[in-house]
């Protein structure tokens, strides 16, 4: 097939064997003459789209990740005209190589197939990046409109690209109005637009915020839709969009006739801040769409929540909110007959990540060296009362001792506080490569170990250190004078060669 680039003037040759994707509306092809681009060719001519595409090509928004060499928005680069009759046949856009549709990553089964090392932190980062792109568009008065599981692409570095941009709502700079977004998927459509014909609805960012929150929920809740759940009524369960219209969010405060989906992760794996934001969007947002969190709010909240992720002591691919006592992913693997949603690197490398974990897996007890130290400390006699220092020690010894103790006090204080449950936070460094090692201090997630035991053994260690320090200081005070004299005598014996 031959096409003419409208603004560039060159002809583009597309062969059908270069097809990489197809949908009801169009087919996507790679372009031999330019590997950085793909061509979207409509199945049927769409004359109403041509002026929209024209405006879009002439007014591209700034790409938030242009400096990183990544296209966040698959914006039309040029129009493609049919070589036969010059009508608009499609358009060219940047090609994001190796990206997966977002649903391949939030769906646990698919994720195991295509990207098994995409951990919960990567899912968090994807959500954050998605919100960032949406924010960048909203700031420029673009509204995505048809935000859904199939038009967001994600790289294995968690970088996001929004595609199908030809269905965006775009300001019509000439007409003073907008080019509408005539499509939408019911599961992502906000209650105020449910059941309405979408051809001439002027959308607002508040509409997008609903679909954005649905995708973020799916990313963080293993692909479950926020409005999925067990219907407690008599008849056939209403479809998802009816539940959206009715505001029947199962995790809300109102009496929605739904129990949470039994095989979804428990909502408590999300920190309270995020749970509140979801409630604001799906419950409060029904009456007042302004209650829905803005994209920028999501970016900030997700960034902070990601810093609060901790790693499991059993499998370092298990990352979870530090507000939890136990690893939810270990537990989930148990309830699912050993199917690990985030298999360890070892299992992935050895190709066994799709197999269930063996039932006879070992389970650790708290470290057995801890009790013996504790026992030793308990058996130690308390430090003996020392005699007050004599004049022989001289003024410098007591000053040194006092200074030592002074110096120790704040350090001791910090250590004592830190003896309580403390986890060093995850550094939020940009993830450039899939094998990037996150440095963190994890904590043992085996259920036997409680944080107060750890704190107590730390306290005992500190007491021992203190006792030893006091012993040294006391010895120094007692024999300091002798050491001084012995040192002076030795110095005098050195022959300096002149008297």
């Amino acid at each position, binding site marked *: 097939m031959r096409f003419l680039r409208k603004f560039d003037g060159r002809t583009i040759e597309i062969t059908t064997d270069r097809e990489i994707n197809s949908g009801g509306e169009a087919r996507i092809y790679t372009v031999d003459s330019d590997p950085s681009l793909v061509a979207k060719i409509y199945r049927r001519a769409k004359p109403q789209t041509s002026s929209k595409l024209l405006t879009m090509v002439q007014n591209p928004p700034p790409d938030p990740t242009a400096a990183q060499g990544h296209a966040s928005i698959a914006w039309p680069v040029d129009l493609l005209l049919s070589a036969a009759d010059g009508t608009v046949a499609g358009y060219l856009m940047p090609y994001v190589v190796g990206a997966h549709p977002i649903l*391949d990553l939030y769906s646990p089964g698919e994720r195991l197939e295509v990207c098994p090392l995409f951990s919960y932190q990567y899912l968090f980062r994807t959500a954050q990046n998605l919100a960032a792109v949406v924010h960048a568009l909203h700031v420029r008065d673009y509204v995505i409109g048809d935000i859904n599981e*199939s038009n967001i692409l994600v790289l294995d570095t968690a970088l996001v690209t929004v595609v199908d941009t030809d269905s965006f709502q775009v300001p019509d700079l000439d007409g003073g109005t907008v080019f509408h977004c005539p499509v939408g998927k*019911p599961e992502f459509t906000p209650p105020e637009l449910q059941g309405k014909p979408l051809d001439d609805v002027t959308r607002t960012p508040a509409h997008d915020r609903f679909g954005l929150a649905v995708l973020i929920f799916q990313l963080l809740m293993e692909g479950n839709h926020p409005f999925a759940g067990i219907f407690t009524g008599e008849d056939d369960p209403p479809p998802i969009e009816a539940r959206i219209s009715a505001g029947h969010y199962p995790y809300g405060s109102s009496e929605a006739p739904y129990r*949470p989906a039994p095989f979804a992760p428990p909502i408590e794996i999300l920190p309270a801040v995020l749970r509140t934001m979801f409630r604001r969007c799906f419950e409060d947002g029904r009456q007042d769409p302004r209650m829905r969190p803005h994209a920028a709010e999501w970016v900030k909240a997700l960034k902070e929540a990601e810093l609060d992720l901790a790693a499991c002591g059993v499998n370092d691919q298990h990352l979870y909110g530090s507000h939890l006592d136990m690893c939810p992913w270990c537990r989930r693997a148990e309830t699912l007959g050993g199917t690990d949603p985030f298999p360890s690197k070892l299992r992935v490398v050895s190709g066994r990540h799709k197999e269930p974990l063996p039932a006879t897996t070992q389970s650790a007890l708290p470290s057995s060296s801890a009790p013996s130290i504790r026992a030793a400390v308990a058996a130690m006699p308390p430090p003996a009362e020392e005699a007050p220092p004599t004049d022989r020690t001289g003024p410098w010894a007591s000053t040194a001792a006092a200074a030592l103790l002074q110096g120790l006090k704040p350090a001791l204080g910090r250590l004592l506080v830190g003896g309580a449950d403390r986890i060093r936070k995850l550094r939020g460094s940009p993830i450039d490569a899939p094998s990037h090692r996150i440095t963190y201090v994890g904590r043992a997630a085996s259920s036997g170990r409680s944080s107060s035991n750890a704190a107590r053994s730390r306290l005992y260690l500190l007491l021992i250190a203190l006792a030893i320090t006091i012993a040294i200081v006391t010895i120094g005070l007692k024999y300091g004078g002798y050491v001084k004299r012995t040192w002076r005598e030795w110095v005098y014996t050195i022959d300096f060669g002149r008297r």
Partner: protein
Amino acid sequence: MVSIDNKIDFANNPEPRCPCVLLLDTSMSMKGAPIDALNAGVQRFRDELIKDKLAARRVEVAVVSFNTHIDVLQPFVTANRFSAPVLSVQGFTSMGTAIERGLDLIQDRKNLYRMSGIAYYRPWMVMVTDGQPHGEGDHAIRSAAARIRKYEDEKRISFFAVGVQDASMDNLARISVRPPIMLQNLNFEDMFVWLSASMHLVSRAAVSEQPAVPVPNIFGAL
């Protein structure tokens, strides 16, 4: 209680489901070219279905063959894990019993979805036959037809009857609420391509309305 296999399936794939039952006549009269074409058609159905990522995960296929006996050759499975069973022929045509069996399969599946909090689209049932009920009591087909009418009225099923060769279209018109589809020249390919395209639309479209799927009356007409 939900079995561990179903639990794992729903946890790994929480997408809403679109159940589709293929009710296939494997009576003696289908022997030879018809059953070969039908086998090829079901294979084509699977291949077309999985081309759409969403449909591959949302459509669940069950295959029930019927002759004198009813055989659930394939219990419900998601399209991406469905492989076409091989059909072989024998005996008479227990059509009414087969329809009831198909409807029961659907009802059980819906109960499972309900217990598991999985949303679902209106189930489809497509019956392919080359004759009329034979070898079962008359009441069987009548009660089956009544049940289909009831479910169609309540919008709880979409039932399509496809008549092959010497099938009595009048008879099928009495069973099916929608006009029966006539298949000529054993063109199962076209029919199954249409079915998979319809499944693609259903798995993307609004749950409450049936999408405007053009249903040809005749497939394979020259």
